[in-house]
């Protein structure tokens, strides 16, 4: 795929004296072993939160949307905030698997599987909100252009909410296919190692009879590249379409052209923060520190820093243009954000999103696991508030002062949100015990160029100049 020679200046991506077999064993261990106490505790908490969320949703559907804190002025608040937040989190998964693949970033290989899992699980959470924020969710199928008995009554294709339907469903399907294709060789590995007939059966079904022939690998690579090429514009367009929900409106604070790329940047920002949070824990509990190294965390931190800066520029641009536009509604919208009744949420957002990632400029901080973990949590809080600020502060005070109001969430709003967090972790915890959380096949492909022991060997043998030849012969030996 890419050159076989690697500059000595590049740091190893696989540390410790790992060989091909070690990778297999390390990746299979969490799947083949038994869950420990902590896992069951975490799973129980997540399950409880999930069930509580189910109860809240059931209550909403049974009694009506009035159970939430929405009012006549603020028709969207936590529901859409959470929707956009979850979609945003999902974006880093595709970014890591698709965009980083296009840019030939070898470090993505240790983290792409979990990032994609995170995408799938968070898009599932996101998908709940558009359905259950409907007043009549049992008529949700009306959003689909299906021939029907109402004289073939169709949907209006002019609404960004309809575009959302297409965007999210396409995004989920493509991400799922992309993820599953990558899983085939790894499921095959688990199948071939299975100790019980039951697991053998399960992984045989999941791995679709993957036998790893040259032709299969060739097509596998081809399809990965094509899907990465499709997923990249998809990732941009999905969050762009989500941003259109606001930007196509005429609400001051919503109608601004920068929203599409700025939402995408924010999505990458929050998504990487979430990946960082999850992987910092996972590398520890699943003993994967040799694969998810400090360098991986540092690189994710750098992406968080870059996208955080892009988001910062967008904030400043919005502020400047609001002033520059000379439109008093627009000017007021931003004045209200900074000094109105929701000033605390605005400044919380600014602090978390603009200031906190800037500390990543210091190598000491971005290579500290503790600092990275804290900042990644802070960023996720900040990004939740970003969506909240955009949605609520623009709605609660707009053109007519007689319609100005406030928003107060109820326990049902909060319960639904907590429920999705619970659901997400239920899925993610199950995933981490049943799926190969590292794409072992891909990691093995960078073993010779980027693992610590091979790098050391090359240094000793001094074959930098003709790495290409040596490596192909080595390859034959194995």
């Amino acid at each position, binding site marked *: *795929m*890419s*050159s*076989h*020679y*690697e*500059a*000595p*200046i*590049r740091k190893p991506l696989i540390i410790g004296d790992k060989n091909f077999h070690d990778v297999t064993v390390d990746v299979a261990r969490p799947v083949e072993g038994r869950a420990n106490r902590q896992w069951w505790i975490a799973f129980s908490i997540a399950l409880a939160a999930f069930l509580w969320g189910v109860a809240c949703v059931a209550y909403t559907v049974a009694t009506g949307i009035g159970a939430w804190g929405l009012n006549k002025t603020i028709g969207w608040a936590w529901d859409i905030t959470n929707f956009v937040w979850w979609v945003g989190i999902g974006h880093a998964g595709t970014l890591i698997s698709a965009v980083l693949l296009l840019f030939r970033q070898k470090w993505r290989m240790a983290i792409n599987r979990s990032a994609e899992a995170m995408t799938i699980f968070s898009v599932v959470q996101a998908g709940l909100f558009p359905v259950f924020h409907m007043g009549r969710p049992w008529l949700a199928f009306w959003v689909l252009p299906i021939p029907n008995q109402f004289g073939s009554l169709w949907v209006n294709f002019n609404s960004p909410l309809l575009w959302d339907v297409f965007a999210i469903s396409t995004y989920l399907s493509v991400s799922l296919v992309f993820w599953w294709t990558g899983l085939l060789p790894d499921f095959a590995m688990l199948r071939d190692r299975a100790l019980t007939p039951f697991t053998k059966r399960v992984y045989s079904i999941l791995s679709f009879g993957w036998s790893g022939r040259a032709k299969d690998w060739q097509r596998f690579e081809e399809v990965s590249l094509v899907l990465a090429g499709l997923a990249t*514009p998809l990732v*941009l*367009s999905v969050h*762009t379409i989500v941003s*259109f929900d606001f*930007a*196509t*409106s*005429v609400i001051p604070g919503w*109608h*601004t*052209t*920068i*929203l*599409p*790329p700025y939402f995408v940047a924010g999505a990458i920002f929050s998504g990487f923060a979430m990946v960082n949070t999850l992987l910092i824990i996972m590398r520890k509990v699943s003993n994967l520190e040799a694969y998810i190294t400090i360098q991986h965390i540092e690189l994710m931190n750098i992406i968080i820093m870059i996208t955080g*800066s*892009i988001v910062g*520029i*967008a904030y400043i*641009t*919005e502020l*400047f*243009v609001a002033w*520059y*536009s*000379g*439109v008093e509604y627009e000017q007021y919208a931003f004045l209200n954000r900074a000094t109105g009744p929701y000033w605390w949420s605005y400044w919380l957002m600014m602090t978390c999103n603009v200031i906190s990632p800037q500390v990543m400029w210091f190598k000491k901080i971005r290579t500290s696991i503790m600092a990275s973990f804290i900042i990644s949590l802070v960023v996720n809080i900040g990004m939740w508030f970003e969506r909240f600020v955009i949605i609520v502060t623009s709605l609660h005070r707009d053109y007519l002062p007689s319609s100005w109001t406030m928003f107060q969430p109820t326990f049902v709003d909060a319960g639904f949100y907590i429920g999705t967090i619970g659901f997400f972790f239920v899925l993610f915890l199950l995933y981490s015990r049943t799926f190969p959380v590292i794409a072992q096949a891909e990691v093995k492909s960078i073993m010779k160029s980027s693992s610590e022991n091979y790098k050391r060997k090359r240094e000793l043998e001094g074959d*930098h*100049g003709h*790495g*290409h030849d040596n490596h192909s012969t080595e390859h034959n030996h194995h």
Partner: protein
Amino acid sequence: MYTFSSRLKTFAVILMVLGILGIGYSFFTAPKTIEDVEKILKEQEDHHGGHGAASHHPDATAATTQEVHAPEANQKNATDHVIHDNQDHAENIEKHTTGSVDEPVTHNADTTQNMAADQDVHDNVAHTEMGQNHAADAHGHDAHAGETAEEHAAHAHEGHDAHADHAAHQKHLEHVLHQLQNKPWAAVYVACIFFMLISLGVLAFYAIQYAAQAGWSPMLFRVMEGITAYLLPGSIIFFVLLLCACFHIGHNGLFVWMDKDVVAHDHLIQGKSGYLNIPFFLIRAVIFLAGWNLYRFLSRRNSIANDDANDDSLYKKTFKMSAAFLVFFIVTESIMSWDWIMSVDPHWYSTLFGWYVFASFFVSGITTIAMITIYLKSKGYLEYVNTSHLHDLAKFMFGISIFWTYLWFSQFMLMWYANIPEEVTYFVTRIEKYNLPFFGMLAMNFVFPVLILLNTDFKRLTWIVVMAGIVILCGHYIDFFNMIMPATVGDQWFIGAGEIGAILFFLGLFIFVVFTALTKAPLMLKRNPYLEESKHFHY
């Protein structure tokens, strides 16, 4: 070492000479007085027959506006009339305040006027029948604000009044005079900023390659450094052009907000004068240009010094400097686009604009790298550059072309969708008066490169990449043309001696400077931590 072939050098000099002749011709033939304009318009009318009369003759339009009541009449027709009516009206104010044609009066750009005009379509009845003051309209903060009720009443009746009719005609002529006087300036301005931003785009790409520790591109660093050599002369000429605009040298009225008389009657621009004022504008320009050139100078110096170094300390320095430059760049690039491009339409604003401009010149810069690499390779200079390097460049051309389109569409669609008058006027003007360039550039910047560069094999064929590159570069020139011209020359645009001359001159200068710079250092770095990777790069 590369030697600048004498044939290419001669070619560059010929381009510059032809360019200067074209530019000189366009300045020389620009109308000096109202009489010249009258003659030009008469010729246009003769050429276009009835159509010309309908779109250029204010007497006819003014008269019909009074007769046709907008709500009942064909809406489009009414809009046209009102636009003209309004233009004349806006000029009335100028004439009233400045009193002299010879003064370098800048006047409201078409978009500004359209904006007022669009507002006026629905209040047209009230406006003409009651002689109401425009300042009382919804968007009275426009050019009309300074007017008195009497003037306005007189204006409202001008359609019926032979004397006022004549005055309106004079106003129209004066308006066209300013557009035609702006035309050669705008032609030079567009070409100048386009080539300067190409080299800035390459500089940004260079910095990104350094900061990203790319393993494929060090082989192309010297090519990129050669292209960025144009930044300094380009910046100097561009700064001189900005000075000409700031001090209204030679009837230069590219920036309406620099005209005190316009500002005096325009509340909207007055509200922006804390930002849009000449001293601050020039200070910003100096900081931006100096900052970019400083990074260019230091990174080039390090790059050459690194050839004879014993360790990677210079490389590390450039790495850090590149990261710092990228931060400076992302901030200054946004502000630059507001200052130098968006402010020609001082009533219009878009938050996306800075990033849109960036995508436009970034893809042009990458295309230029590809084309110069191909040229040098064809002359046998770049030994280690192979089709994989070309493939990567072509992928960037492809990808950033789509990115540009994404930003174009986001900006356009959101304004089209919401249809808020003060925003949408920008696109109304362009679609009505610049239809072919506006949609043509989409075909050139999106459809063509996407179709042709999708294929992997094609991305490795030099002639395909060159062909796509030429279309992309022409397309993005038209993109900049579409950003500047509607506000400065309005419907008087055409691509003539001035425009082509300016392109030729700057192209010649660009070739001359870039290829001269390429002779100053070996085309391959001697050392760089990723040099070996780049040499062995195969994809």
